[in-house]
């Protein structure tokens, strides 16, 4: 069970119509790969975030399937094309069933 999982998002608050904006996300998570062993030689069970989705006004920007090779505190940077004001919604899906969410509004003029 991952503790203190905190999503952080950086996206612009304002943009012009049709502009391509850069979005950066970071979420604190140990991303235990399932390959490591503890001091007694027992395998530490896998516990990662396995999927990340970013949508803008309900339409998908990027949908990422993640594997254990993704580093601790998964970081993503990508671009979205905004044609109207709206909200970015960010969702992370944990192996343990937890879902972490964040959002960011943008005004397009």
């Amino acid at each position, binding site marked *: 069970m991952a503790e203190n999982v905190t999503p952080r998002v950086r996206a612009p608050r304002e943009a012009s119509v049709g502009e*391509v*904006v850069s979005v950066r996300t970071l979420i604190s998570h140990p991303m235990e*790969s399932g*390959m490591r062993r503890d001091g007694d030689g027992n395998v530490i069970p896998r516990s990662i975030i396995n999927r990340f989705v970013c*949508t*803008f*006004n309900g*339409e*998908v*920007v*990027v*949908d*990422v*399937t*993640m*594997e*254990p*090779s*993704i*580093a*601790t*505190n*998964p*970081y*993503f*940077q*990508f*671009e*979205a*094309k*905004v044609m109207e004001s709206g909200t970015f919604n960010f969702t992370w899906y944990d192996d343990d069933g937890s879902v972490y969410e964040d959002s960011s509004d943008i005004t397009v003029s």
Partner: protein
Amino acid sequence: MSLTRREFVGTSLTSAAAFAALPSLSFAATADEAIAAYYRRRGHIGCRDHLDRARNCRERLNTVQIEVSAPGAEEIIMFAAGNPNPNVATFKFGPMSGSQAATTRIRLASEQDVVAIAKMPDGSFLKAVSNVKVTIGGCGG
């Protein structure tokens, strides 16, 4: 109906679902073979990456920031051929994406090739390979 192994692997890659169905441990080799046999044209897929040496001197010995881009692709899948589990991530780009590019940070067990394969809307595949050096235990490399 008889299929050679090569044809079978190539066919299985035509559906995105097959990405997940293939056994992960043999994925690096089979993916390489399958794509080599299957993809029809080589495009300008870019795979740039760099090693953050400053960070490598500290606790995150093998964390590497990777940037991948493939203009027009609908999906990019990444492998780290030298990792125990070579699968890294699959990026699917939706209608609101501004570019078919993404940056993330991955773990690498050692110096190895990072492979990116882009699936284009016409069903073809593009591949890029980039060798990444990882400095473990110091900043010398």
